């Protein structure tokens, strides 16, 4: 037995040595890895071997079971000849060697985990990211870890978030100018939101700024120039809340953080205010449910745009963000595109934060259009939320009309938005803040939007501000989209299909049926053999996936944050847990 173990260790060591002696494929830029490109959020791959002409010949090249039943919401990462997969909490990080005939595990790393954090989150985790010759990832129980990708050896490991305060880390970190930038989740537990930067080489804390509280802690100083004048007042992070409510007011930075190297700016959304019950937090609830631009070296805020001020439906603004360079009504403009949970596509001038357009991509009734001069949505008073009362038929429903995975193709000029089309009944109830317990005060009951399928992938013309086509799906689309230069769009569905569409007209060209629903982000990469591959993690779990597991009872319409009722159509099936699928032409 011991001999076997020594032998295995020797083989592992030998393969590690070999991989070290092989020169890393430095010519593969992150952009070539498609969805793995950190920073711009476009989920666009410049690879063009796969095209509408040959997509129907795509075949499963390899499948790798992750051994986890959680929500596989992240993206795999390709780094040199290695494909890295982070499984849901409690995490295991697998590094697969792509030079083998079929991917084989080169090493695995399993961080010690605090099981307590499992109760603090619904929705899986972000993926790993690479920078230089290091690998970085966040754990749901609040740690940020840097590894040596050759061996899996730990370079540093810090406790960045504190689960005892309700904080978790559910997004991927971003590497910007030698810093690891990350933000917390935990809005539903009354955790105060923050974004922080740590040294990429040592893990040492550099700066940290909050989404609520005094200006100094939010990072608001002389350099702050909000596009709308009300936010120029002092300490809005305190004065827009009832006394002391900002201390557990949410606003987590759980969504994408974008890095614009030429401007030296970071862009990120902030989560919803806590609790859900809006009558317990009268005021605009700054700086939750909006978009920040921050200086990368100091973290100081440059501008802030409120997207859902006094967020009635606890949507937050942590859905997809994309940096897009294109013409806007007559001239080239640096744009920030943000399809929000409230159902509108925000187009912003990212130099100033001014909103240029905000057209709805699904039918909405909670709002009645957008006031461009004020930069604010016009709310429908009939859909207001009052403590102790139930408001019916609010569209869109929590957790929002879209998640984090929209894609943009500069070839077609279209934005590809994975969409949830659900409406909800919401009842607000008074609640009390107790650390470690959910701070929500709301009961939800979701149903598909009347007359529409519950999900879709929407091809959106940014300049015209309307949908060009849509591919309807019977269930909300929770995963991300990937656009490729070859003219394809890939995405997975909650009922377990992985599809390729023609990026121009949205016609379905190919699909594959997996063993579980897909809530992850697909990527495309060039293999060591020079061929284009597409990879995606399948595995439901979390929300809405937990609704398919044995521990959700669908008879309760409010289960899984109200999604149980909308997902009763989800076929009960033998769910073997997570799988990594890799596709290629035969």
């Amino acid at each position: 037995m011991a001999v076997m173990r020594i032998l295995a260790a020797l083989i592992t060591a030998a393969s590690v040595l070999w991989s070290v002696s092989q020169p890393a494929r430095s010519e593969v830029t992150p952009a070539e890895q498609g969805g793995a490109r950190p920073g711009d959020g476009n989920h666009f791959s410049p690879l063009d071997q796969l095209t509408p002409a040959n997509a129907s010949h795509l075949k499963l090249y390899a499948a790798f079971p992750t051994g986890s039943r959680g929500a596989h919401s992240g993206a795999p990462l390709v780094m040199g000849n290695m494909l890295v997969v982070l499984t849901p909490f409690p995490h295991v990080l697998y590094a697969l060697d792509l030079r083998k005939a079929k991917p084989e595990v080169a090493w695995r790393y399993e961080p010690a985990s605090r099981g307590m954090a499992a109760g603090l989150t619904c929705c899986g985790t972000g993926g790993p990211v690479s920078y230089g010759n290091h690998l970085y990832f966040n754990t749901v129980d609040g740690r940020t870890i840097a590894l040596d990708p050759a061996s899996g050896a730990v370079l540093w490991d810090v406790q960045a978030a504190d689960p005892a305060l309700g904080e978790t880390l559910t997004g991927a970190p971003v590497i910007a100018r030698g810093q690891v930038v990350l933000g917390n989740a935990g809005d539903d537990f009354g955790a105060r939101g923050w974004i922080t930067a740590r040294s990429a080489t040592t893990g040492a804390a550099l700066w940290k700024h909050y989404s609520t509280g005094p200006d100094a802690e939010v990072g608001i100083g002389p350099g702050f120039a909000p596009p709308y004048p009300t936010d120029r007042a002092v300490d809005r992070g305190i004065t827009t809340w009832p006394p002391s409510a900002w201390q557990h007011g949410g606003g987590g930075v759980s969504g994408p953080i974008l890095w614009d190297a030429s401007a030296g700016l970071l862009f990120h959304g902030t989560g919803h205010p806590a609790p859900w019950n809006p009558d317990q937090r009268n005021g605009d609830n700054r700086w939750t449910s909006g978009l920040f631009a921050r200086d990368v070296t100091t973290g100081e805020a440059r501008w802030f745009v409120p997207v859902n001020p006094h967020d009635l439906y606890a949507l937050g603004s942590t859905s997809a963000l994309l940096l897009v360079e294109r013409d806007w009504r007559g001239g080239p403009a640096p744009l920030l595109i943000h399809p929000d949970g409230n159902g509108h596509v925000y187009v912003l001038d990212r130099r100033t934060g001014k909103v240029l357009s905000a057209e709805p991509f699904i039918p909405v009734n909670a709002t009645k259009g957008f006031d461009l001069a004020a930069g604010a949505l016009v709310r429908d008073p009939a859909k207001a939320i009052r403590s102790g009362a139930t408001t019916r038929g609010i569209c869109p429903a929590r957790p929002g009309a879209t998640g984090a995975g929209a894609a943009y193709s500069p070839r077609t000029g279209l934005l590809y938005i994975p969409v949830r089309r659900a409406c909800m009944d919401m009842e607000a109830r008074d609640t009390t803040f107790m650390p470690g317990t959910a701070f929500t005060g709301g009961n939800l009951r979701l149903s598909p939007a009347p007359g529409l399928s519950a999900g879709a992938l929407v091809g959106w013309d940014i300049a015209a501000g309307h949908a060009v086509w849509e591919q309807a799906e019977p269930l909300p689309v929770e995963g991300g989209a990937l656009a490729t230069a070859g003219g394809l769009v890939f995405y997975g569905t909650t009922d377990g299909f992985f599809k390729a569409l023609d990026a121009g007209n949205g016609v379905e060209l190919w699909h594959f049926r997996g063993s579980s629903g897909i809530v992850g982000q697909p990527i495309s990469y060039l293999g060591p053999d020079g061929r284009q591959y597409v990879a995606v993690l399948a595995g439901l779990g979390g929300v809405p996936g937990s609704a398919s597991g044995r521990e959700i009872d669908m008879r309760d319409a409010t289960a899984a944050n109200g999604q149980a009722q909308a997902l009763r159509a989800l076929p009960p099936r033998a769910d073997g847990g997570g799988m990594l699928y890799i596709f290629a032409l035969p």
Partner: protein
Amino acid sequence: MTALRCAALVVLALAGCKQEERAMRLDPPIAEAMDAVALMPDGIGGRPPEVHVAMGNPYRGNAYQISQGKRLYEWFNCRGCHADGGGGSGPALMDGWWRYGPDLVSIYVSIRDGRPNGMPPFRDRLTPEQIWQLTGYIQMMGAYSASAAAPGRNDRMFSRPSENRAPAAAPAPGQP
């Protein structure tokens, strides 16, 4: 004459009513003894406190205690994770499947001490009596037979069949 007959009938009818016993406040020594559960080493199952047995399992079939448990269930944010028994970031409580055991002592200890996968301890927030009231309500939620003592309806959003007609094994609407 009619009035007299009516009055007599009312007296007779009332005499037939059996008032459920309600202990509004426990004697302090009993309240303290209520916390003395003997737990198995694996943290699941055990013996309820002797005073609990001596009082005839007072939290199980008593409408007052169960409705108190239902109020505590909302007031102490149980709904935030377990919804109305259907689960969310915490497991469902009404499906008849228990991670840490279906018996009263297991449920009591889960609430009092917490459990390792996210359940926080409530021993500093609730008295033993309140934990027992919650325990009675939660066990009734996942029971395989309906209880006449269970609450009949919600005074809130209707989210599931009411507790007194919802045995755990019944299928969800629209599901086989």
